[in-house]
């Protein structure tokens, strides 16, 4: 396996370190080597919504830094994934590339294009290989879980192209290989509404509550593939729902780490906001 340049992203680095911790632990145990990209900053996506040029400059700046390493770039966050994949697709237009490079020249950087950007789910499923990954599983977890695919791991579909946006079977497969049963539920495809939290708390709470109430009683945990989705459900749930209605939210890499037989202490569970005790107890009691 090649070495990967690692782009950590704001949310994993600051608010969701349990994702970074568990992703690193999992990849280390699978023999994947990561090298943090020097000088990385925000991927730019939050600014996409108000200033196209600010976004494209920030995204391209990080791409240019990754290109210097000569290795593909690994991201944990679906937002970063979208940001970089869209930027790469747009800078294939010479005029846009030219104007971006004028700005990057301030720092002596130049974006070339053609960088390979890989989301950790894509790495595990397509590149490491889902069958090979299944062979590494040491503990069949036997949980009922609800998959939350999230938006930008699959959308916009013409730019991302990793999995079917309406029925993301690759994500289901990644979850099922841990020995879990992935339940079907209404609103599975629905957005976490992360950006709403800063604009309309009540709307954000109702979106989060709607998903959790659809899985409550049937799922031991909700599984996410994006730190922003994780933050939305894990943090907002506590404001939106009574403790008895709350459902633990695990990063996929935490779930996979358990299945690979890694000790829970190595997977950052102490950072999960909704208690994961019941999930961990259930796994311990699995013969």
């Amino acid at each position, binding site marked *: 396996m090649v070495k990967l340049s690692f782009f950590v992203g*704001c*949310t994993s*680095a*600051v*608010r969701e*370190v349990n994702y*970074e*911790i568990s992703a*690193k632990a999992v990849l280390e145990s699978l023999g994947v080597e990561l090298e*943090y990209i020097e*000088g*990385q*900053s*925000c991927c730019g996506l*939050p*600014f*996409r*919504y*108000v*200033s*196209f*040029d*600010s976004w*494209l*400059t*920030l995204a391209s*700046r990080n791409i240019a830094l990754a290109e210097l390493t000569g290795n593909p770039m690994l991201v944990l966050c679906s937002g970063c994934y*979208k940001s970089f994949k869209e930027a790469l697709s*747009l800078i294939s237009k010479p005029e*846009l590339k030219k104007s971006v490079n004028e*700005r*990057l020249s*301030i*720092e002596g950087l130049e974006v070339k294009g053609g960088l390979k950007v890989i989301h950790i789910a894509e790495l595990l499923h397509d590149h490491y290989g889902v069958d090979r990954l299944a062979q590494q599983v040491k503990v069949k977890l036997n949980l009922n879980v609800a998959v939350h695919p999230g*938006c*930008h791991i699959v*959308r*916009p*579909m013409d730019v991302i192209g990793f999995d079917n*946006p309406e029925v993301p079977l690759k994500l289901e497969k990644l979850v099922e290989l841990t020995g879990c049963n992935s339940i079907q539920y209404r609103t599975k*495809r*629905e*957005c976490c*509404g*992360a*950006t*709403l939290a*800063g*604009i*309309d708390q009540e*709307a954000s709470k*109702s*979106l989060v509550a709607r998903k959790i109430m659809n899985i409550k009683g049937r799922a031991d945990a909700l599984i996410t593939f994006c730190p922003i989705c994780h933050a939305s459900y894990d943090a907002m749930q506590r404001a939106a729902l009574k403790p008895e209605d709350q459902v633990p939210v695990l990063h996929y890499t935490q779930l996979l780490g358990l299945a690979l037989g890694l000790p829970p202490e190595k997977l*950052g569970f102490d950072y999960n906001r909704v208690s994961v005790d019941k999930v961990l107890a259930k796994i311990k009691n699995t013969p």
Partner: protein
Amino acid sequence: MARMGRLGRADIDPRFESDVLKYPVKLNVDACLQCGVCGGSCPVAFSMDYTPRELVELVKLGLKEKALSCRAIWICTGCNVCSDRCPEDVNPSEILNSLRALAFKSGFKVPEMFLKMMENLLSYGWIYEVDEFTNEDRADRGLPQLKPPSLDSLKKMMEATWPRGD
């Protein structure tokens, strides 16, 4: 659209649609069938004053003030489902991006969140505050320190692209 109230000629800006279309991503406003697939798919339409379908119509009608001052453009989470499902490749999610950018550039009210994130970006290189506690915590977990990128260059790049300093 009941929320429109009485409209007169003065409410119509004939250049509005072409301003919206001056966006680096392809938008097909004129192809819209008003089928409503976008609004029906939108996870946050319940909290919007205009659905994405109605916003496309506002653009077509040249109702600039309504479109740029409405709540819906800020409620949109940018999930892209509307664009993926639109049968005519109208690209409503990018139309909303163009509307927000126009609102921002033209001095309409913009949620504080965006300005705060830019402030953090220019101070730390990240959209969140990164203080010594963040880095102590990371060190305890064997994670590398978050060093700011070259903030001087970042500032210059943002000055060249960010429409407002406030």
